[in-house]
């Protein structure tokens, strides 16, 4: 198993290289560059613009720019500076606990999704075609089909305009009140974070839950029709033992695999929600770099998201081997 993981990790390097080349090409194909905004400023002369072009090396041929970018990473581990903030790219992306918040939001959402989706899926399967099955399925799909940005805005609007939470001193959006940032962890801070996090969990969580519910339901239904379940029932086991001890244990395997795959989605897929709900995540600083065409930061962000994707896949394969004794990688 260990050699397998090492091998897979090594495979990532050429893959990341290809990703970087494609990303770099795409950035260069985009019309304009970091200085396009400056060109529209009547106060800036041609000479100044040319100086900046030289400084950033923007007029060198594409492949030369890529070569220097790659060379600096390989020889010096230097991913470059942000044109905008004049700080190293990862500092620009991660500054202010953005990485920690991104991981916290992704993991906590994932946990909650599974915590709700699995029981609902089981319930739905054991109550197949009953009205309650239709109702939970309906709400699952509702969560899937409402666009996240819209759902988030509607939630905030409800809180402010309908429930007037401001009258109770409550604030909306963000992950906590401004005064708690940088303050030591207290119960008041934890309660405050929970108050700010529930809309996040609701918006991001519901968008992925329908799939999980359907998957759990389908798998369990398949498993419940297998001969060994009939045997279990025939030998007089109680229904909950049949379902939970025999069927669910086998039906849950694919969901464990998907756990690994949904991690990267949660990191890169929640950018829109982060914009509306003002979450200090890597996605938001990446989005700011995209808007300004801050090339080095975009590249670093893309590599970061790709790395998450590859790690998620690795995790999925690893988990599959772990939960399913039939799978062997050696």
């Amino acid at each position, binding site marked *: 198993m260990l050699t397998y993981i090492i091998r897979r990790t090594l495979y990532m390097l050429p893959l990341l290289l290809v990703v970087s080349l494609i990303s770099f090409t795409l950035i260069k194909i985009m019309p304009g560059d970091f200085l396009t905004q400056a060109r529209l400023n009547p106060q800036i002369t041609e000479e100044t613009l040319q100086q900046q072009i030289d400084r950033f090396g923007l007029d060198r041929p594409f492949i030369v720019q890529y070569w220097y970018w790659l060379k600096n990473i390989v020889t010096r581990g230097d991913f470059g500076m942000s044109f905008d903030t004049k700080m190293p790219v990862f500092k620009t992306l991660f*500054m202010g606990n953005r990485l920690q918040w991104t991981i916290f939001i992704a993991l906590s959402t994932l946990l909650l999704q599974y915590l709700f989706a699995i029981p609902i899926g089981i319930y739905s399967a054991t109550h197949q075609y009953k009205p309650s099955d239709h109702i939970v399925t309906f709400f699952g799909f509702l969560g899937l089909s409402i666009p996240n940005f819209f759902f988030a805005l509607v939630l905030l609007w409800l809180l402010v305009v309908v429930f007037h939470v401001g009258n109770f001193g409550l604030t909306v959006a963000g992950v906590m009140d*401004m005064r708690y940032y940088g303050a030591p962890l207290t119960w008041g801070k934890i309660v405050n974070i929970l108050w700010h996090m529930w809309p996040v969990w609701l918006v991001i969580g519901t968008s992925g839950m329908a799939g999980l519910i359907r998957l759990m339901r389908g798998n369990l239904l398949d498993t419940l029709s297998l001969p060994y379940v009939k045997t279990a029932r025939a030998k007089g086991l109680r229904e909950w033992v049949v379902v939970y001890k025999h069927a669910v244990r086998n039906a849950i395997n694919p969901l464990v695999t998907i756990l690994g795959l949904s991690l990267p989605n949660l990191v890169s897929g929640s950018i829109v929600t982060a914009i509306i709900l003002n979450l200090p995540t890597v996605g938001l*600083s990446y989005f700011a770099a995209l808007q300004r065409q801050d090339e080095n930061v975009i590249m670093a962000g893309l590599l970061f998201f790709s790395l998450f994707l590859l790690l998620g896949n690795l995790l999925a394969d690893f988990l599959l081997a772990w939960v399913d004794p039939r799978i062997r990688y050696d």
Partner: protein
Amino acid sequence: MKNALILASLLVLTSLVVFGQGYDEQPADSLVYPIGVAGTVYEDMELGVRGGTLTYASIEDPKGWNNHTAHETSTTAFTNRMLRGLVRNDHISLAIEPDLAKSWEISDDSLVITFHLREGILWSDGTPITADDVLFTFNDVILNTDVDCNSRDGMLLPDDTYPVCEKVDDYTVTFTMSTIFRPALNQLGFNIMPKHKLAQYVHKLNPAVPVGTFNETWTLDMDLTELVGCGPFIVTDYQPNVSVTMSRNPYYYAYDPAGTQLPYYDSEVTAIVTNSDVSMLKFRNGEIDVYGLRAEDIAILLPEGARKGFQVLISDAPAFGTTWFLVNMDIGLAEGTDAEKREVYRNVKFREAMAHCIDKETMVRNVFNGLAGAQWSPVSVPSPFYAGRDYYGGPITENNAVAFEYDPAKAVSLLDEIGVVDADGDGWRDLPSGDPLTIEINTNDNTIRTASCLILVDDWRAIGVNATFQVVDFNTLVDRLFGASGDFIYLGLTGGNEPNSGANVYNSCGSLHAYRYSACDEPDEIDLRIDELLGLGAGTFDLDEAFGYYTEYQQLLSRQLGYIYTVVPTFQYGYYDYVGNAFKSQPDRTPSRYTGLLGELCFDKRL
């Protein structure tokens, strides 16, 4: 709001640790704002009390704390509150007034400006502010080509030289110019930076650091206790994507007439809110005190104001800036195509026809909910040089306006006159030769501009001009603008007080003379006169004389119809009733980025 008070008291405590104690007594040379003094522009303001926290919202994170390497307003919104220059544009009258300099003289030949600095005033860490700081900022930062500084270009005189800055004594500096250039006085209001903190990062002064170190100085990740300024507030805390907290500078040199040191507020907190809809919700939720609102917010906020205790303030005149479309008179010139179309575009009667077909009233009503005004001049309406006034700084009368009133019938007759008629009977007007005439107007993805273009296109199509509208990516649009490869382009530019700051756009060789770049090589009489007038207006310190030149310039340019002006939004924002003196604003700020509120003069009425 209790939370805000706790926050404020915390901030006061920390600021005492970080900063010095402040002046023992009001410095003799302090700047006194005539708040509440009859006969001044500040007469309707009230004296305030010190304390409290004022909360804003900003749509973007700052990119650093270094004023002279900053490239965008999301950064300068903060550095402009931390730093001050020798002179300032008065917040309300917009006239040039003393700031770090208590006075100045202009030599008889108008080539030397001597500034006398205030004595005994200090940086926020207690170090005296002297002529050395001015020299450092000008010679070693702004004019230093190692420094990635945009304000250097603003200092350039018409003869491509820079003013020479020299020290007379610790509190006197002179700027000597090789040519008379009045806008220089305004430009010399650049923010002064502290030499004792920053000289060590300039390669020229400290060869131990590599070239360009200054560009990477005072970045977002710096130790904020190292920040030193001379403005009313200093940044003391930054949480990425969350907030910027600024605390009062204990050594700010401005006072009110009662002897209270400004600013009144202990701190200002700017919440960073990426989405404007969410900013508005936060304002309605009482989380932010002042909100630079959008036209579409008015209908929601106006009825709610009385109940929730806030005001919505709408300026009566348009804000700074211009909005226009251009007819590319060089279309196809580089490729040797479109010769006939170019011929038509270069005919001023064609452009007049287009200009007569702009329904500005409908635009103002439908696109801006009535919160905009018609525009005809290249100079922003609030500028004292705006030719809609009768004299420098006078009230707006529009007596001298060159307005092309909305008159489709006139447009029809103009087009008929130049032979742009429907030759083949397909319902669309053709070029004089009979070839079809199609026009494409481009703008970027911006709801306001898109809606405006749709109105334009509707009006043109109604008189038989086959116009279409296409949204293109902003960068593509800019490429078309600079490559003269567009057809009609709809965009806007920022504006200021001084017409000469638009020289890059309106001078026939300007880099943004986008309606006809070829004018640089083959200028006509009008182009030459415009170039001349721009120079004459800037070459005199007599404001009335300059106003005369600039009026002729504005009228000529408007008749030439290179850029054809449409409408500009007014400036509006909402503030809670408890924010004292909030009704005065600097309308030259983009509402969505920064409210333009005079934070240093506002106070909390509840204290």
